[in-house]
């Protein structure tokens, strides 16, 4: 399990360039920061009001005034800035976040995303997710390819949308996919899987890139 998450996080890290402003969702996406090359420094935005967020605070050295959007105690890097929530989402909605990385319950071939309502379960609220996926320049879905075998990459999302037509890229333990006007383009395949296996794990029909690469 940890292995799969690490494979995904490591691959996502390769999508980021030095100086990128990035918002990482809770969970797997947070791990991405651990896999950046030494010469790639990204600037983390936390929607509760930080530009330039640093690592989690050391136990015993927490500053209770500094949390991230997951309510964990964090630090800030030199050159950071704090702001209010209207300013924070102005930055997000205004297209000043280069990439947002988050999980999904379902993604479909039109780039629609559903990640906030599971029927029959408590609806926790969309938080900042709807603004993030609409506003960020690049939306990368980082998730396990299936949910205990059930398809998550669909022809059409069945769950209520978080946003329509916003997903740029899907990175799973099986491969790297791009949403194109024609559908989902498989660009990289993990060496542990065949094209048949990834297609079987995907409801939407994958377009196989003529330059298909092994997943980096």
């Amino acid at each position, binding site marked *: 399990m940890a292995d799969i998450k690490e494979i995904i996080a490591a691959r996502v890290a390769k999508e980021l360039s030095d100086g990128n402003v990035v918002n990482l969702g809770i969970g797997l996406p947070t791990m991405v920061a651990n896999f950046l090359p030494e010469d790639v420094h990204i600037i983390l935005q936390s929607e509760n009001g930080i530009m330039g967020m640093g690592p989690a605070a050391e136990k015993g050295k927490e500053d209770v005034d500094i949390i991230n959007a997951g309510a964990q105690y964090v630090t800030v890097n030199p050159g950071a800035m704090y702001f209010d929530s209207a300013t924070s989402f102005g930055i997000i909605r205004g297209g000043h976040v280069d990439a947002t990385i988050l999980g999904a319950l379902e993604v479909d071939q039109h780039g629609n995303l559903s990640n906030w309502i599971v029927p029959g379960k*408590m609806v926790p609220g969309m938080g900042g997710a709807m603004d993030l996926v609409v506003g960020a320049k690049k939306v990368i879905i980082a998730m396990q390819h299936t949910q205990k075998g059930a398809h998550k990459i669909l022809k059409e999302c069945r769950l209520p949308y978080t*946003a*329509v037509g916003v997903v740029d890229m899907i990175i799973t333990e099986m491969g790297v996919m791009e949403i194109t006007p024609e559908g989902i383009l498989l660009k990289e395949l993990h060496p542990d899987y065949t094209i048949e296996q990834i297609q079987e794990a995907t409801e939407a029909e994958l377009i196989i890139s003529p330059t298909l690469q092994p997943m980096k």
Partner: protein
Amino acid sequence: MKNKIMTAQEAIAGIEDGASIMVGGFMACGTPEILIDALVEKNVKNLTIICNDAGVPGRGVGKLVTNGQVKTLIASHVGLNPEVARRMNTDVEEDKLECILVPQGTLAERVRAGGTGLGGFLTPTGVGTIVAEGKQVINIDGRDYLLEKPLKADVALIRGSVTDKFGNTTYNATTRTFNPMMAAAAEYVIVGACEIVEVGEIDPNNVVTSGIFVDAIVGGEQPWQI
């Protein structure tokens, strides 16, 4: 200059059953606990609370939820407070809580619009989702936007890190959150302050909320202990 410094009990004396109250903070970081505690003690009921989230049990607006004082909660996220789900689904009429979920950026902007006299704004957030239900969709230069309306309230509970006696306020680190917009969007504004200083001690370049918005200042707000 009018004296604005008072006890929490004096500051909230005018808050009655059914009031609408904006509460600053994000997962209770930036929420004035000293004012929440006074509200719990006063036990006013049927409140409409506007806050980023539902806090957590025992912290922030979570205390008001647990105490059964919240009739309607307007928030972006309530997942860290299981008490909200229980009260949304209860059959006990007087415990029932209605929760209106608003995307976080839209919530912040609606409060800002309320305080700045705008009739609304157009946001791309929520287009094509259930958030769009019942809202006007306006196309500007080929892109669809939702028309979102301003939010105002009777009272705002603000947490200031440093507040001068006029009410000029600064917020440390991530305690800022919704506090500045809420201070402008409510009829009656109370600051729960960690530190109260003399007028003139805060550099005019660094004041975030002007004292003109502030009606009451309550000292003694403590940082949350881990």
